[in-house]
């Protein structure tokens, strides 16, 4: 279940103590359920993998999100995600709605400066959600995409507890409006798949494509010639709660 660790990444145990600090330690003062996607014309869309070939460990898919470009109040990326992934249920208790991606507002308490950013599964290289899963349903694919195999998920929600980013949701009700490429249903946990079905046919995630500000960049972190790797090599970027040493595939700029 575990892909090879990347050089420089820490053993998984190291984060456990830190994880106790939990989400409260993130310093986020407000979580806005609205959101948008950010995408721009992507120069390096994923290459179409040949039918019959497996995801390659030579690739590591990642996202770079420029919080400086993310427009306040915009929810285009969330809308695009929900349409793409068929997230159509609206429950009486909105806290039970699935959130594959959400908008977060950071407020610097000293000067009141506000920053908005989209937050979703960070596709950790050392994912705690995979560590804790009792059935092996929570898994990391060879190319770094973290997924839930719903065929084996028993809905125990350990992974929801373990994830420091609140990235996972449980589906509470029977569903009928699934997109054929994105099966989902009651009793299983789910989270952002990095639009794995689109990536596998050479497209970028729906959020990336939908962002009018071009705030999101998708690509192969392992390929030094990709736009995302070049940007990460040239501007300061952060992994949220990098102290947990999960080595997330989603990075932020302008935080």
């Amino acid at each position, binding site marked *: 279940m575990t892909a090879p660790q990347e050089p420089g990444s820490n053993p998984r145990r190291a984060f456990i103590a830190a994880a106790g600090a939990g989400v409260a330690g993130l310093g986020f003062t407000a979580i806005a359920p609205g959101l948008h996607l950010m995408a721009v014309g992507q120069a390096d869309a994923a290459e179409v993998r040949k039918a019959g070939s497996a995801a390659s460990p030579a690739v590591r898919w990642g996202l770079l999100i420029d919080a400086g470009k993310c427009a306040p109040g915009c929810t285009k990326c969330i809308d695009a995600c929900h*349409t793409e992934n068929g997230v159509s249920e609206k429950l009486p208790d909105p806290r039970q709605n699935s959130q594959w991606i959400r908008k977060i507002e950071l407020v610097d308490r000293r000067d009141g400066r506000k920053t908005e950013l989209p937050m979703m599964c960070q596709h950790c290289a050392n994912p705690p959600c995979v560590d804790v899963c009792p059935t092996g349903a929570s898994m990391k694919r*060879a190319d770094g995409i973290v997924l839930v195999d719903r065929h084996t998920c028993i809905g125990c929600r350990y992974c929801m507890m373990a994830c420091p980013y609140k990235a996972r949701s449980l589906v509470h009700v029977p569903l009928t409006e699934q997109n054929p490429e994105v*099966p989902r249903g009651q009793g299983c946990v789910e989270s952002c798949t990095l639009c794995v079905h689109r990536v596998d046919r050479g497209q970028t995630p729906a959020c990336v494509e939908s962002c009018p500000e071009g705030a999101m960049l998708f690509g192969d972190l392992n390929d030094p010639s990709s736009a995302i790797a070049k940007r990460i090599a040239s501007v300061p970027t952060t992994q949220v709660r990098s102290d947990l040493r999960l080595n997330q595939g989603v990075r932020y700029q302008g935080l």
Partner: protein
Amino acid sequence: MKLLRILATLLFAAIAVSPAPTFAGEGGRTAKPVIEIANPGKCVAPVDEMRRNHMEMLKHQRDRTMRQGIRGEPASLNACIECHASKKTGSVLGSNENFCQSCHSYAAVKLDCWDCHQPKAGFKATGVKP
């Protein structure tokens, strides 16, 4: 799984002896599944093999696709739907004449696939605003 196999084999044996799939002859006492196939003759494997092994084929394919990211295999639930969805309802479920439901209700084998998978051909989800 073994039980499922036995049931499936029994079921298919039953279908095999009744080529006109309706009630077993007018006046017959045993109901037979009514199978509607929208696009016959294009299956990925011969009928006998599909009847006995479709669940194994789909299970192995699903694990390869899900875990290793292998796409484009011949066995695919979505591809099943494309041919087998009813012309009337657009779905493999809904009435006992629709492809999956007809045999499975006849054999009393529970269908879990459609709790998560979309049973309608060409369905496009819309999603909601947050």
